[in-house]
């Protein structure tokens, strides 16, 4: 199976910027595609899991990088 990984760089954007950028990227993607979301908004730490629950997509990983920014890995489900 071919899995495409997309990177969505939403660094510097505030709420709801990262989620909107992610949702727009997901729109044209295939189910099963992986997304790497990069963000600096501290609100994304609670917002990305909430978004995943609301939208039914799968949050595979959430980490804080060395520079203090955040990286999320999401799998498009629907």
């Amino acid at each position, binding site marked *: 199976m071919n899995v495409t990984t997309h990177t969505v760089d939403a660094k*510097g954007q*505030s*709420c709801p910027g990262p989620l*909107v950028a992610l*949702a727009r990227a997901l729109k044209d993607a295939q189910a099963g595609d992986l997304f790497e979301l990069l963000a600096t908004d501290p609100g994304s730490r609670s917002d990305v899991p909430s*978004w995943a629950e*609301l*939208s039914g997509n799968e949050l595979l990983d959430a980490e804080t990088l060395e520079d203090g920014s955040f990286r999320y890995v999401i799998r498009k489900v629907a």
Partner: protein
Amino acid sequence: MATIEAEAPTASLGDLLQRVEALEAQQAKQITKKNKLTIIAWGGSLDQIWPTTILATTAAASGMESSVFFTFWGLFAIVKPGVRITGENWMQKMMSVMNPGSAEKAKLSHYHFAGAGPAMFKKLADDHRVAKPEELISLATDLGARLIPCQMTMDLLGLKRADLIEGLEEPIGAATAIAEMRDAAISLFI
């Protein structure tokens, strides 16, 4: 003992059927809520139209149905940016002068300071890269949110369909707005 056991079920069968029927009728009347956010955008000030557009956009971005019903001062936020004076009589015209159209011109309900307040707000928003209401309006529609103007307030305020921005649904009335809210899991009045 034996006679009681034999009589009890037969005596209650008709009653039981009646109760099932009543329950079914009750269930038929119950509303099934959708995974949907509906906002009544009543306020047109910047500190109202901003959260309205943030929530509508976020709901749409989360795969929820999202609809916004624009009424009263909220309508001025969806007037086309270039449109100046609207309305046919002096009252409607005066109203449009007091409420310059488009989300870009929305005033702050507090600390407006003749426009200095919104300018500072937007400077902060730029610094923090927060999308502005007018940007959020187009993002929301792009993500499938439905923006619906209120027909009655359009008539009252003298706003025509051509005065309003593109991408809106057909104007509706209060009953349709209530129908929108009735099946929405979340409905807000902002």
